């Protein structure tokens, strides 16, 4: 199976602190990969590097055979890598529909853009809330909107940064339902999540990071039993 994304020896230093010490991992097409690790492991930074918001000091990121380090975030986006953010970045002054439309406009024009938006709204069950503003939605719905926004342009790779954060059990379930549907359609995804149990049940592979490096990767069962991983979670909840 071809690798859609390959991260090789990515290093990044912030103000003298080595946040990423040489991260190497890959994501195969059509798979869901979970990225877990304690706080400060460098997961979000890795996301930022992949999506182009942060430039690594060294290393390479190859997407669909193409080196994307050094490209602007919007270029990387257009190439097919879309992401969501840990702290939701919805445009509060725009309606749900408009939020998604802006993203659609990066790839589509005029009427076809609006059509895509409508389709996406239906898929996510948001059609009834299209003209509402994000502040009028529940947290779960807001997460769905951000997801919909990331998906309307039919990205090849989706980076989801803690899509379930702040959600109740029920809300988390519906958001994950949406994610699962995307997977069924063949989307490749890399998901950072702290709700490790939910993650483990639904991913094809797991990558565990700690202190700026990958300490384990493989299928969920193996990773859970890996002594290094258990050690890292000592004092916290074991996965």
């Amino acid at each position, binding site marked *: 199976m071809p690798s859609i994304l390959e991260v090789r020896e990515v290093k990044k230093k912030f103000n003298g602190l080595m946040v990423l010490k040489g991260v190497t991992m890959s994501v195969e097409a059509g798979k869901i990969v979970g990225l877990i690790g304690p706080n400060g492991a460098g997961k979000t930074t890795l996301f930022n590097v992949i999506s182009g918001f942060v430039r690594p000091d060294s290393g390479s990121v190859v997407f669909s055979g193409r080196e994307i380090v050094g490209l602007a975030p*919007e270029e990387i986006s257009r190439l097919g890598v879309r992401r969501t953010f840990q702290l939701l970045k919805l445009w509060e002054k725009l309606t749900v529909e408009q939020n998604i439309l*802006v993203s659609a406009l990066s790839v589509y024009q005029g009427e076809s853009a609006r059509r895509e938006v409508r389709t996406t709204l239906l898929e996510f069950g948001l059609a009834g809330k299209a003209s509402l503003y994000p502040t009028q939605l529940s947290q779960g719905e807001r997460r769905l909107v951000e997801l919909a926004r990331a998906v309307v342009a039919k990205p090849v790779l989706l980076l989801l940064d803690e899509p379930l954060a702040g959600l109740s059990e029920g809300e988390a379930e519906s958001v994950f339902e949406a994610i699962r549907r995307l997977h069924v359609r063949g989307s490749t995804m890399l998901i950072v999540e702290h709700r490790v149990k939910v993650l483990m049940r639904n991913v094809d592979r797991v990558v565990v990071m700690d202190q700026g490096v990958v300490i384990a990767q493989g299928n969920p069962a193996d990773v859970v039993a890996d002594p290094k991983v258990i050690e890292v979670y000592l004092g916290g909840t074991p996965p």
Partner: protein
Amino acid sequence: MKWYTLFPALTLFALPMFPFFDIYSSTLDLALLFGVLTASWDVLAGFTNYFNLGQAFMFGLGAYTSALLSVDWGATIPETMAASTLVSAIMGLLIGIPSLRIKGPYFSIFTLSLPLLFEQLTFIFPNQLGGERGIFGVHKLSHSLIGSYYATLVFALASLLVLYVIGASGTGLILKALGEDEDAVRANGLNPTTYKIFGFVISSVFAGLSGSVYANVFGFVEPMLFSYSVSLSVVVMGVLGGLGTIAGPFYAAFLVELLPPALGVGQTEATIIMTIVVMILLIRNPSRLHRIIRTEKVKVEAHPTKR
């Protein structure tokens, strides 16, 4: 931004029927042009929150371009207007490309210096640019008051329409998104700078065009056109009308310009009144003209399916 906000503007066609028209026609003309100027300012400022503090620069640029072409080269009015458009667009690009990449406050500070720049130029080259007294004898659009008024009105309404359509379009949406969160825009595949430049160029072009019309209606131009009071008034009037609504700033500017004759006060006093009003509004809640309408709309929609 609802399209029905454009309707009140249509009433302006009826104005020449009123008896006071003759005395105030030039004030009306000016008010219309300021309306367009402020609306054009809103395209950038109201959406992306990049406050251009030197909008008068483009206005003066357009005016002077038209004036120069008319007086020195005998160009016809359409030619001068086309030229103004071109010049404004080019200047918009030249200024916008470097300056829109930086953060909002820096941009504002930078634009503040633009009118000053032009003013300096008029003094450095008094012969070509008329110095303090300005340039006279510009070919007039029409020698009748009504003619001038209707011409200006058509221009103003057409501009307002175009600006409004742009604001309501997908591009306008993108600009609004930019004003809130640029990184999110990037993450969704759009280059912020490209759109900001677009907004700025549009803003400049219409500002320049209003200047051009000014020159052709009033027959002269002077350095006062780029004074700070003009630029800053545009900002204040824009805020007063409601950022991001295009129509709001247009009406606000139009009405404010009419204050002096309406209340029988001078220009300065009107400015004072206006600024006080805006200041009060700013400190209180955002209850500006169109915000009220917006909140009403949101309330209605917040009571969803009551079937």
